[in-house]
């Protein structure tokens, strides 16, 4: 599915609006006051050897005059434990639950930015306050259609803000399992890759369309081979194609069924401005709209967890 039903979008947007208006909700204070044992474990785990965090004498002589906690630990103090009771409700909960319900079950963190106002000292007990700052979408992303949800947590000691964190996630609808990507089954139409062709498939994995170039005479050649037929050089190099091309010929495959591909599908011979031709599928275009001379642009499609294939989409001329 590539769009959100208008009613669903309206409900989500209204809910987010109300939660933003709610402003900040205070959570429970840190379960334990800022303490040396937790600082020591964290610093060791992180490889942070700054004695200002763990050496009483050193700290006493330093600018703070006492031990302080590493600022990046701020989330640690108030993070709910795995076995603990229910965390305090925040304005984010309802919004994330509503997105789950609407099918946006995928989640990936996209941004996290922390700001520190001052160091925490031993014995202090920070209290988090959480507010929803925004929800944007629906957006089409590589992962699927989704909404970006952003919130801000401010940590207070008494009523003094000591640190802030902006956190953003993408909640997305995992793409429906198409025939080409069913449960990431291995794509059955694998090329045989050998010494003479590995450079091409390595390039594809890196998002490059590589054309073999003779290091001897500079001739470009596709499909590639081990020897330059022009100058007999076996020194093989490559250039990266611009990614532009033009449909030189094409077919629409209807029958028989081809494993790994849903019919009908389009295969084209694409003429590259670099002077060589290459075969590939034309995607994101109705088969009936494909025509000879149509400008296309290469993109790279993951066919399974390992195999990437260059495919061609319509481009502006």
């Amino acid at each position: 599915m590539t769009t959100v039903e208008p009613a669903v979008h309206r409900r989500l947007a209204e809910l987010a609006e109300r939660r933003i208006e709610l402003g900040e909700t205070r959570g429970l204070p840190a379960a334990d006051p800022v303490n040396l044992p937790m600082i020591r474990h964290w610093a060791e785990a992180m490889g942070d050897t700054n004695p200002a965090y763990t050496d009483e004498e050193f700290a006493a002589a330093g600018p703070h005059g006492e031990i302080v906690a590493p600022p990046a630990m701020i989330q640690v103090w108030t993070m709910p434990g795995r076995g603990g009771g229910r965390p305090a409700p925040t304005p984010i909960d309802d919004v994330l639950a509503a997105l789950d319900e609407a099918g946006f079950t995928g989640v990936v963190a996209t941004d996290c930015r922390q700001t520190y106002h001052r160091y925490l000292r031993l014995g202090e007990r920070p209290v988090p306050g959480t507010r929803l700052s925004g929800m944007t979408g629906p957006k089409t992303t590589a992962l699927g259609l989704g909404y970006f949800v952003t919130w801000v947590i401010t940590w207070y000691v008494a009523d003094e803000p000591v640190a802030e964190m902006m956190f953003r996630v993408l909640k997305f609808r995992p793409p429906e399992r198409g025939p080409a990507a069913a449960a990431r089954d291995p794509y059955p139409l694998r090329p045989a890759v050998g010494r003479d062709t590995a450079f091409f498939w390595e390039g594809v994995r890196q998002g490059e369309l590589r054309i073999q170039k003779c290091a001897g005479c500079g001739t470009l050649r596709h499909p590639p081979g081990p020897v330059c037929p022009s100058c007999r050089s076996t020194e093989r190099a490559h250039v990266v194609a611009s990614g532009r091309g033009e449909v030189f010929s094409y077919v629409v495959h209807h029958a028989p069924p081809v494993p790994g591909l849903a019919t009908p599908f389009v295969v084209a011979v694409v003429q590259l401005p670099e002077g060589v031709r290459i075969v590939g599928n034309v995607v994101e275009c109705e088969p009936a709209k494909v025509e000879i001379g149509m400008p296309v642009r290469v993109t790279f499609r993951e066919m399974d967890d390992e195999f990437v294939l260059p495919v061609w989409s319509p481009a502006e001329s």
Partner: protein
Amino acid sequence: MYSLSGRTAIAGIGATEFSKDSGRSELRLAADAVFAALDDAGVAPAEVDGLVTFTQDANDEIAVARETGIGELTFFSRVPYGGGAACGTVLQAAMAVATGAASTVVCYRAFNERSGSRFGRPSTGLGAEPSSLGAEMSWHVPHGLVTPAAWVAMVARRYMHAYGATSEDFGRVAVAMRRHAATNPAAWFHGRPITLEEHQRSRWIVEPLHLLDCCQESDGAVALVVTSAERARDLRHRPAVVTGAVQGSGAGQMMMTGFYRGDMTGLPEMGVVARGLWEMSGLAPADVQTAILYDHFTPFVLLQLEELGFCARGEARDLVAGGGIELDGGLPVNPHGGQLGEAYIHGMNGIAEAVRQIRGTAANQVTGVHNVLVTAGTGVPTSALVLSTP
């Protein structure tokens, strides 16, 4: 200069019935066809000392020799590249006979191509460190370009674009072949002609090809007996003299996927063959009374007419639309119905038809036949013959 032309002849032809399910092994089919050809020629198995087949054939020469009592062999050879091998088997046999490597050579092709392993099915199996063919296929298989129909369709589309040919132009070839098959009792489609409307209504296989642009799949076998022209004169039938026999591969040749060379509107390998054939035979297109053109897919019949010089580039559709390839046309093509109408035995049944046309015994006999042109599979390295009356 030494020439192969006129030194050898096809003295015997044999075939099994053409079916969709032969009900017997491919080796049995091969043996049946070899016996039929030897009996047709009036040659005993023990007189045969050479065998030639396709690299794609599943029946080893020694196995065929064992089953048929052929005994000792002094020459055995295979021709690669799928259906492009057909006339090449006769070239190999003729060279063996002309050089004395053998005296009597049988060419054969036997398969259960319909009930067994079907060529029309996607071929997707590729190895790790590839053979050169595997490497070639690897530029096409990952994109689902995996069937002969699709490979031909790619060239056909460009040809249509270049010359304004249409699906109906291809359809007229299918209609003519089925009309010829309708009056050939050996044809699978005997008594079953089609109309252009039926062609247009048939389902898409790979656009721009409809189902009725694609030849059938068949079970069956064909065998041919090649010997010296001199000896052939003493055998049972009028010899079909091998006036021209040529193989050819184009520059930048690939297997059905010649998408990287030239303007993609011709069949360069058939151009190579045409030059050699006219030179060796000393003939010109006008000297041929009927042509057996390899019709695995209709578009390539048009392209062959152009490569062989029967018309100019882009004008084959006019030749066909004007009835030129019909039985009463200027160049009757595939009077037996071709592979679209009679059977798909990888082009070998077409060579047998050419021999019948020379003998004057064909179901749809063309009058006044002196020279018959026969071609093999195109889009791949190919071959062709001119067979002539003595």
